[in-house]
């Protein structure tokens, strides 16, 4: 309610994107982004998909320097 009350004062021309229009983008690319983050940050540490250590070893330094738990 408050944003509708405020909008006409100075931001009458502020654009918004309808959430209905945004939802499919957020769902699909949000999940895709989280999947990428999982493979870089945590895969083959606590959980391994696929098994092995190649992904872990390859992104090892990035994992340490970006603050993710690693060993």
């Amino acid at each position: 309610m408050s944003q509708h009350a405020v909008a006409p004062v100075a931001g009458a021309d502020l654009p918004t994107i309808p959430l209905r229009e945004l939802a499919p983008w957020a769902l699909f690319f949000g999940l895709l982004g989280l999947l990428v983050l999982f493979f870089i940050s945590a895969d083959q540490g606590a959980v391994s998909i696929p098994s092995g250590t190649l992904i872990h070893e390859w992104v090892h330094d990035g994992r340490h320097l970006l603050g993710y738990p690693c060993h």
Partner: protein
Amino acid sequence: MSPRAFLVRGLLAGLLAGVVTFLVAYSVGEPQVGAAIALEEAGDGHSHSHAAEGGEEEAPEVSRANQSTWGLLTGTLAVGVALGGIVGLVAAATLGRLGRLTPGQSTALVTLIGFVAVALVPFLKYPATPPAVGSGDTIGVRTAVYFAFQALSVVAAVVVAYAAVRLRGRFGTYLAVVGAIAAYLAVMVVAGELFPTVNEVGDFPADTLWFFRRASLITLATMWGVLGVALTGLVIRLYAAERAVAERKALAASL
């Protein structure tokens, strides 16, 4: 101003952030990673090379030269692009919904809150550890508590931001924003006390640990800083271009 326009700009800003973060991480962070690994190999601590565990002298799966260059670049680029896409879509969702903030201002605020909630606050509770600190036996627990704390931080930030926007009309911007920040801090301080402490530092040298953690924080700040600055700049340009088109249309219609 469409979801697609924000996504594309987020991915582009994230790509740039990934490249810059690689350069910073390589020049500031890698010397500290190297120092930690040198300490590890000099001491009789747990072996870091997983292939060499059990006393075998096998070659590691990925060489140090690859880990510190192409491997690091892979990590920073992928994280940069993924974060960029997500932050771009969040900026699209907040567009025109954060009081009177313009598209550029709301985008900048989203990335600032993102840095604090996703990177800075989790870092304060579970700081980055160099190679040689952190047991392979506890990686499951450490991963679980880190991501749980990070998820709680993000949820708390989203909830208080939403509450601030909703309560702004009743209490005014000042009280709503101060109350939201105080509520977020209260939740995270209490959670920080309740969440288990991870301390596997042992007799690892304090100076090397601090230099590594400082480098890690600089790396994270670079990632979010470049992402925020680049995305904000792109959104400002997008908005200006759309306004110019709208004004031209209005002018044409008035003739």
